């Protein structure tokens, strides 16, 4: 009786939710607490940031590829950063490199990727009405927005934005007199990043709480889609590592603005000694890379999680090694925290310590290889449908492997001493972290666009976009390995002053720059497809990819609360594709075993008895609670 009463109360309450007064424009689209709107806000901000971030890289690639080129045509955008002779200002070159790194790592691949898809998919795939706290979620986006505005503003100030590299090592970043970019630009960078960290913590806390507390009936951890596992572990990584970056930044702020000496010691500028004594710049590197390395996985894991989902769906096969995938993600997440010093092999650390970090670093190859093999074995003999999302996912696997191989080379401390800070490193991390994660992001957009906007993206344009981007990225980064091995250091303004760089590889640098411009141009196909399809795309069916996860059981345009009435219960894992005996080649998670006797395995028949128990479970439905 009590259950019935409670249920009818829920229905009544849910119905009441359906008939909420239409909220004002501001509450619906701007200061929204709805996870789907916040996800779209993150996505659109991420796309705008990526256009800015990649444009910056095209600008410095022009300088690197064509050092004698007149860049006067950039004056309308860059103003006096193009000097009288039509050359890019060397100080601004450093700023461009720094801002490209900062924007792409944090604003695009952290906020744009994790912010979009964790927000969008966690409640929809675990079966929750919304995030645990819609208010904190909204706050998270607006902290990010504020951080974005400050970072964007720093591009336009007279002394230019931060220019000490995205890693902002002191003393360069700690002393305003060190470089133009270390003046106001660096201050704004630190303020922006502090706000960004707050935003990421608010978001991450929400993701973890939602996954743990608000799963629907029957959605045990062993039935969670791999996307959710990936978002969950990403959020845990962020929760543990971002506060450490905040500490590092805080001490740096005190060094810069209050005259403390945490990172500064015995520095002479123009023959005069600074008062700071007793600090240690290496300390900053330790603190920074304690975040910096997990950050690599914060960027990559969500992309890997979405790839698992997309590859299984479009191969029409269960994901190979579901538990091995979870275990390897956990392994990667754990190892992420104990390998940071491999970024610091050349800081004069004890070689014995170096070999420990080398050993731990190389172990990462094991879970990474497990993941790569599982993707390939999932594809193996699958009934593959090459949707654009699928192509981008396969592209991700390709980048993950080819970039991961060079990781094994760089992880060796002896080899790293030769290759440190050369273009080899640039090529390595752009493939394994940059391009792979960007492909995860693009795959996710192509795959979940119908759920986000209720319309399909144009497939033909998607194919063109994929092939141009895929080929373009390899054309950019493959030659870069050779340049790195031959000793070209990264972050240099020009290679015209040294004999060993003057004549060799100049043509290859031009080639890379042309390939970069080509790849950047190809992205406009995506931007056009995205914007056009949002308004004019073909109307999407409810489950366009015939996928198993819960988000496709929600209405095509899910409203507030995602499901009208009861949230579906979950009886099976998310990967029942092409099950022998089954009517269709997919069985969604909310279909009970009692309805599919023809395809049940013996142990699954035993689970039929437990279905009543699952249905009777206490549902953490937010609508049931007074609010």
């Amino acid at each position: 009786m009590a259950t019935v009463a409670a249920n009818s109360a829920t229905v009544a309450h849910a119905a009441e939710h359906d008939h909420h007064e239409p909220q004002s424009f501001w509450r619906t689209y701007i200061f929204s607490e709805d996870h789907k709107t916040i996800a779209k806000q993150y996505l659109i901000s991420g796309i705008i940031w990526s256009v800015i971030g990649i444009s910056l890289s095209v600008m410095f690639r022009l300088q690197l590829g064509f050092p004698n080129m007149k860049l006067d045509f950039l004056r309308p955008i860059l103003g006096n950063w193009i000097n009288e002779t039509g050359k890019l200002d060397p100080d601004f070159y450093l700023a461009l490199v720094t801002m490209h790194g900062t924007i792409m790592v944090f604003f695009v691949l952290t906020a744009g990727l994790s912010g979009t898809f964790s927000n969008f998919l966690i409640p929809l795939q675990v079966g929750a009405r919304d995030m645990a706290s819609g208010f904190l979620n909204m706050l998270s986006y607006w902290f990010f927005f504020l951080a974005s505005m400050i970072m964007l503003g720093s591009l336009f100030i007279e002394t230019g934005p931060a220019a000490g590299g995205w890693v902002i090592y002191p003393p360069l970043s700690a002393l305003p007199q060190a470089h133009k970019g270390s003046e106001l630009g660096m201050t704004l960078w630190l303020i922006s990043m502090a706000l960004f960290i707050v935003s990421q913590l608010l978001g991450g806390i929400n993701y973890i709480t939602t996954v743990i507390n608000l799963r629907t009936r029957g959605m045990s951890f062993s039935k969670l889609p791999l996307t959710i596992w990936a978002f969950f572990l990403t959020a845990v990584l962020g929760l543990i590592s971002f506060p450490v970056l905040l500490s590092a930044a805080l001490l740096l702020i005190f060094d810069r603005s209050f005259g403390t000496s945490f990172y500064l010691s015995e520095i002479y500028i123009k023959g005069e000694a600074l008062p700071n004594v007793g600090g240690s710049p290496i300390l900053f590197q330790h603190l920074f890379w304690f975040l910096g390395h997990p950050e690599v996985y914060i960027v990559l894991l969500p992309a890997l999680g979405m790839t698992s989902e997309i590859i299984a769906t479009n191969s029409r096969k269960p994901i190979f090694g579901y538990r091995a995938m979870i275990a390897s993600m956990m392994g990667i997440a754990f190892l992420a925290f104990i390998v940071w010093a491999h970024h610091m092999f050349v800081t004069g650390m004890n070689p014995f310590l170096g070999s420990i970090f080398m050993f731990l670093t190389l172990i990462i190859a094991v879970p990474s290889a497990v993941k790569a093999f599982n993707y390939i074995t999932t594809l193996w003999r699958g009934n593959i449908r090459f949707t654009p999302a699928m192509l981008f996912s396969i592209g991700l696997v390709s980048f993950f492997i080819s970039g991961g191989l060079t990781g094994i080379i760089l992880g060796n401390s002896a080899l790293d001493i030769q290759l440190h800070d050369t273009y080899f490193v640039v090529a390595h991390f752009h493939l394994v972290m940059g391009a792979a994660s960007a492909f995860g992001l693009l795959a996710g957009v192509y795959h979940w666009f119908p759920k986000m906007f209720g319309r399909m993206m144009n497939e033909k344009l998607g194919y063109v976009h994929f092939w141009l981007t895929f080929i373009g990225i390899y054309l950019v980064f493959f030659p870069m390995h050779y340049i790195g091995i031959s000793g070209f250091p990264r972050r240099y303004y020009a290679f015209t002053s040294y004999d060993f760089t003057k004549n060799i590889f100049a043509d290859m640098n031009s080639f890379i720059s042309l390939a970069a411009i080509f790849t950047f141009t190809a992205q406009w196909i995506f931007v056009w497809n995205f914007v056009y399809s949002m308004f004019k795309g073909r109307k999407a069916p409810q489950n366009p990819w015939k996928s198993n996860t819960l988000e496709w059981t929600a209405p095509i345009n899910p409203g507030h609360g995602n499901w009208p009435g009861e949230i579906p219960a979950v009886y099976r894992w998310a990967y029942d594709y092409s099950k022998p005996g089954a009517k269709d080649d997919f069985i969604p998670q909310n279909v009970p075993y009692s309805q599919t006797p023809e395809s049940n395995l013996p142990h699954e028949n035993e689970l039929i008895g437990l279905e009543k128990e699952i249905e009777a479970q206490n549902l953490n439905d937010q609508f049931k609670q007074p609010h």
Partner: protein
Amino acid sequence: MSELVNNITLVEEPEETLSMNPRKFILWLFIVSIIMLFAAMTSAYLVRRAEGNWLEYVIPPIFNYSSVVLVMSSLTMHWAYLSAKKDNFGNLKIAITVTFVLGAVFLYMQFLGWVDLVNENVFFVGNPAGSFMYIFTGLHGFHLISGIIVLVFALVAAFRLRIHAKSLNQIEIAATYWHFLDILWLYLFFFLVYFH
């Protein structure tokens, strides 16, 4: 194949999802992030200290007394929680107020500690040994202010009779956070004394 499948007796019992209040869970995660913030600070302290050139100074004794005050405030906070549980609204209001006052007294004593440090010629700017002292106390103080704000909300709720035996979430959240800040300070204090 079927034999293999028959051998798998992996029948999972349906598990209840965690029934913890999401807000309380959010608080715990927030606490994790604060722990990481201070873990980074204290390990930075150790790394820096191991490098030598470390200023030795006497930790002002007022920090001993302020620690006692903070522990007492934790006790009164617990008293507030117990009163709320028993619907004893008079005691609840008194207990929260006393906790609030003790928290403020603690902050004032921390400030006096800074004054003592300055009198000892240990400044924020100078050898990192001193700077870390200010950073630890300052950052903890900043978090304690946030704890006091949470407390004020609880106090307002108590006066509006919104905290009672059947609605304990708010007081529980305030109490958990307050006890955490207490333990955090004791950790920092013993850390500073031990690794001096």
